[in-house]
């Protein structure tokens, strides 16, 4: 499919140029991911603003923090948010960030000598990538549980303004986590295929930045959506 344009390498490079010249000596991919994260701030702020704007404006329940009695049927609906469960999932996501930094450190230090068993565990990139991916998946599991129980309790994306803005906001976050898990799995596949070494640390670093950012967004959502009444 591809037609190689030119296969001849640089003839007399005076300095050992590892890759193309870059102005700041930074890898372009890392610059791009930070720009992307900046852009994502606006994305999530739009979602969060909408949630907050519509907060307290729903005409019918269920509501996040208040009980609601359906005037037509007389059903009493409890506040729908389940703080204990979400606290647990929040904790899991926080831990995944720890695993992620450990995965990155492991990849960065791949070639460094390992002296103790602790060093070897900390230096096991596969382990930490797995842990991160599992934590992410667990978080998604919690979310799936949350969504289904909400639907059972009578809150769907169509029920009221709260339902629409809540599911869209947390759903977008969940989609980001899902993409992150896929990314991690891809890294794992590479790790199994050829091993990730310190020369790949950038690959992991970028994934990690994305992962942490998704975590950071959850920190905000947890407070604004779940805790503040």
């Amino acid at each position, binding site marked *: 499919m591809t037609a190689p344009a030119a296969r001849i390498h640089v003839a007399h490079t005076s300095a050992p140029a590892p890759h193309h010249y870059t102005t700041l000596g930074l890898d372009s991919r890392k610059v791009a991911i930070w720009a992307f994260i900046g852009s994502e701030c606006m994305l999530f702020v739009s979602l969060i603003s909408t949630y907050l704007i519509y907060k307290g404006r729903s005409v019918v329940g269920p509501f996040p923090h208040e009980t609601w009695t359906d005037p037509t049927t007389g059903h009493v609906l409890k506040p729908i948010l389940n703080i204990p469960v979400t606290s647990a999932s929040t904790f899991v996501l926080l831990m995944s960030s720890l695993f992620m930094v450990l995965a990155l450190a492991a990849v960065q230090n791949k070639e460094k000598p390992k002296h103790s068993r602790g060093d070897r565990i900390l230096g096991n990139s596969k382990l930490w990538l797995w842990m991160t991916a599992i934590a992410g998946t667990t978080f998604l599991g919690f979310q799936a549980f949350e969504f289904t129980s909400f639907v059972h309790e009578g809150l769907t994306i169509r029920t009221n303004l709260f339902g629409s803005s809540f599911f869209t906001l947390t759903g977008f976050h969940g989609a980001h986590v899902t993409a992150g898990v896929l990314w991690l799995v891809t890294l794992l596949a590479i790790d199994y295929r050829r091993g990730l070494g310190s020369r790949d640390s950038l690959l992991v670093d970028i994934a990690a930045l994305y992962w942490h950012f998704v975590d*950071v967004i959850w920190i905000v959502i947890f407070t604004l959506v779940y805790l503040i009444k």
Partner: protein
Amino acid sequence: MDTHATNLPDSAEADAHAPGEVEHAHPTWSTYWKVALILTLITVAEVWLYYIPSFVAGRGFIPTLLVLSALKFTIVVMFYMHLKYDHRLFRVLFTGPLMIASLTLLALMFLFGHLYIKIM
């Protein structure tokens, strides 16, 4: 011939960066777990506060939660996303948009009457 011209420092912003990743003073395992601990503690504190009805009813509840969450936010960004140690360009690329995003959020809250200023 030299296609990758010699790396003249870019006087304005390339301080001391040679091409390729520069090893900064990276945080280590001990930083990482401490950070995780702090994050966990803050989260516990947040949820705990949520369950104190008198505090929730008070005026300090929302500000406290906002501050705590901002604190967590900052810690993750600074340490896990190693913004504290990284090139300052990244700080600009992140804080700039974050500022605009926060101001937009604030403005929207005013516009939809969730926050208001009293005049007259």
